[in-house]
């Protein structure tokens, strides 16, 4: 054992100074829109969807409609994923339009004014052909309006205004995504410092931790209300150990990245070119993670999600199971289902039985729903990141690989899409709960809650996508090690032949 230590330690000590990878990160983080967690190389550029290529690649026909709307935002934002995320939120927005009428426009207006983005109509005239918007709106709002027969008339009434609102809302929500960091630290006097941090050299989890710490301080000193803590996404996310797992995953990712670089440096000629090509192929599977499917009817039961995620996980051939995640997800869905099926009058007692999920429940149901929504989103996200971290640890533990790295990355990419869709779906469900429970509430009470749910859902999706990107170096080094392993085997088996 001590022999092994001797050979391995030098590799690790190299990593301690950490100086060589910092400058690259710095330059990348100068743009505040750049994701703080994105790795300088080789992941950095993969954030954008592969617009130039897809026509030659798989599944392009499905991708195209999405790109039409999102590609325009990419240069502006640099956050390729937001486009499609925004799209999936679109249907949530229209669901809200269908149910509360003017609600969503107020939400968006509020969001816009507070975020300083252009007005919906401006955006819609600039960016969308009216026909396109119309089609989307109808497609998305009608199935949702169905169950709420009462509101369907309202739905038609707001259709005309809804059009510009929704298309504007799409942009607004994308913008909200970009501004997520701002909002995390909203009301945070030390926020500039946080941003300064982000621009310097910190990793994503550091920045998040920082923002969270600041917020925790504020929460502790200024706002003592129990509800505030209960609905603070960052605090909850940390409580579910999401930050810790993200930090650990970052550490594994960083080390892997350094190892990959040193392997590449040690190779030359044809060998190097072959490996580079293979790594490139791997990298491409990481840029395909997007919501490429047209918004399908998402009426999956609990079993389906559990089955699907378990299935995907088994394809990874790592000895970890997504039980915790599935459980968290199913709890959320069960809660929503109950909350929607019970008439309003019964809500109070109904939730008492759910007390274990929601701590001490107070009487105000809209706030309850909001608190539970935020909590669920934080928990699901933390579980997802934990899964990615465990996957990374298992990929790196050096057992013989049964599955090709590229297959794994495809599976992980599918998983990322699935998780983000699930979050989007959940947020929709939660806002439906909110609008149903809050029919009597004033807009200025209800709307911020709805906005918050959407915000944190997009927040969640971005954490998950970041965590996914962190897996690339891990898969790369696993590919390299697997290659070395098999070439060693080949050499061993060839030797007797040649003799």
């Amino acid at each position: 054992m001590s022999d092994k230590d001797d050979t391995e330690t030098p590799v690790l000590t190299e990593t301690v100074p950490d100086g060589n990878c910092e400058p690259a990160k710095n330059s990348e983080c100068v743009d505040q829109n750049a994701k703080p967690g994105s790795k300088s190389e080789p992941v950095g550029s993969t954030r954008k969807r592969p617009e130039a290529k897809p026509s030659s690649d798989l599944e392009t026909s499905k991708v195209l409609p999405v790109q039409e709307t999102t590609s325009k935002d990419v240069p502006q934002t640099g956050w390729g994923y937001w486009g499609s995320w925004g799209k999936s939120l679109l249907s949530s927005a229209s669901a809200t339009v269908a149910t509360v009428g003017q609600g969503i426009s107020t939400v968006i207006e509020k969001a816009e004014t507070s975020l300083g983005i252009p007005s919906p109509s401006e955006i819609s005239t600039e960016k969308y052909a009216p026909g396109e918007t119309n089609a989307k709106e109808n497609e998305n709002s009608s199935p949702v309006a169905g169950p709420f027969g009462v509101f369907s008339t309202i739905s038609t009434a707001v259709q005309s205004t809804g059009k510009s609102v929704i298309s504007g809302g799409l942009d607004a929500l994308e913008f909200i995504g970009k501004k997520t960091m701002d909002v995390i630290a909203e009301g945070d006097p030390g926020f500039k410092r946080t941003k300064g941090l982000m621009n310097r050299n910190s990793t994503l989890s550091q920045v998040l931790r920082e923002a969270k710490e600041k917020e925790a301080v504020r929460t502790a000193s200024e706002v003592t209300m129990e509800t505030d803590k209960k609905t603070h996404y960052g605090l909850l996310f940390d409580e579910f150990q999401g930050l810790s797992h993200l930090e650990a995953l970052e550490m594994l990712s960083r080390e892997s990245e350094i190892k990959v670089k040193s392997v590449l440096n040690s190779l030359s000629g044809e060998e190097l070119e072959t490996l580079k090509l293979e790594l490139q192929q791997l990298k491409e599977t990481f840029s395909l993670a997007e919501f490429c499917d047209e918004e399908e009817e998402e009426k999956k039961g609990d079993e389906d999600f559990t089955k699907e995620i378990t299935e995907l996980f088994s394809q990874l051939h790592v000895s970890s199971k997504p039980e915790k995640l599935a459980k968290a997800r199913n709890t959320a869905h069960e809660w929503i289902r109950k909350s929607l099926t019970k008439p309003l009058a019964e809500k109070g007692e109904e939730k008492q039985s759910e007390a274990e999920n929601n701590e001490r429940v107070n009487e105000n149901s809209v706030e309850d729903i909001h608190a539970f929504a935020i909590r669920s989103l934080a928990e699901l996200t933390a579980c997802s990141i934990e899964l990615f971290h465990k996957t990374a640890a298992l990929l790196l533990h050096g057992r013989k690989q049964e599955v090709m790295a590229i297959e794994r990355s495809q599976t992980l990419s599918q998983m990322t899409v699935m998780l983000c869709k699930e979050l989007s779906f959940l947020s929709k469900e939660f806002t439906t709960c909110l609008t149903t429970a809050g029919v009597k509430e004033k807009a200025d009470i209800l709307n911020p809650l709805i906005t918050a749910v959407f915000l944190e859902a997009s927040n969640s999706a971005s954490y998950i996508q970041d965590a996914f990107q962190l897996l690339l170096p891990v898969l790369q080094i696993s590919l390299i090690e697997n290659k070395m392993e098999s070439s060693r085997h080949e050499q061993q088996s060839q030797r007797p032949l040649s003799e």
Partner: protein
Amino acid sequence: MATAPYNYSYIFKYIIIGDMGVGKSCLLHQFTEKKFMADCPHTIGVEFGTRIIEVSGQKIKLQIWDTAGQERFRAVTRSYYRGAAGALMVYDITRRSTYNHLSSWLTDARNLTNPNTVIILIGNKADLEAQRDVTYEEAKQFAEENGGFMLKVNIKMGENVEDAFLEAAKKIYQNIQDGSLDLNAAESGVQHKPSAPQGGRLTSEPQPQREGCGC
């Protein structure tokens, strides 16, 4: 857990290291949940636990990284040492092999953390006195020979667990007070939250990173 107070002034990062099956996860569980866990599953990579403790009137949040002990995870767990303020090095007093491997764990702990990291040696399962395989004296000698770390060799479940975590925290806090641990250093393993209510004594917060665009 949602009612846990958030008003702590420091965060210390701990790692727990040692051979497989010495009871690292149990120690953590014992410390964070105050319950004995008879059957821990093997840890994959690392698991986490947190608890807020108080040292000299300061609330400190311990963020504990419970690493996997299996040899096959060794390369992975080495990645997690960085930035630990405290390292709990655990062996099982009923299994000599776990004691024999200590020097290798110590090497890792020394190489992969910073010089100020407080290392505590924990001889676990002292309740199984009848099966004792490693004497207190030899462990003490090991600690002395290798110098510079603290010894806590008589851990019985529920008894001295608390002590081990607290003593490490006291030592770290002491290092902060006497200035030997630089909070501004990148990997001190300590985060300070100066504006926390009780931490009012320090107002000059460490703000190394103020430049950068303030937009």
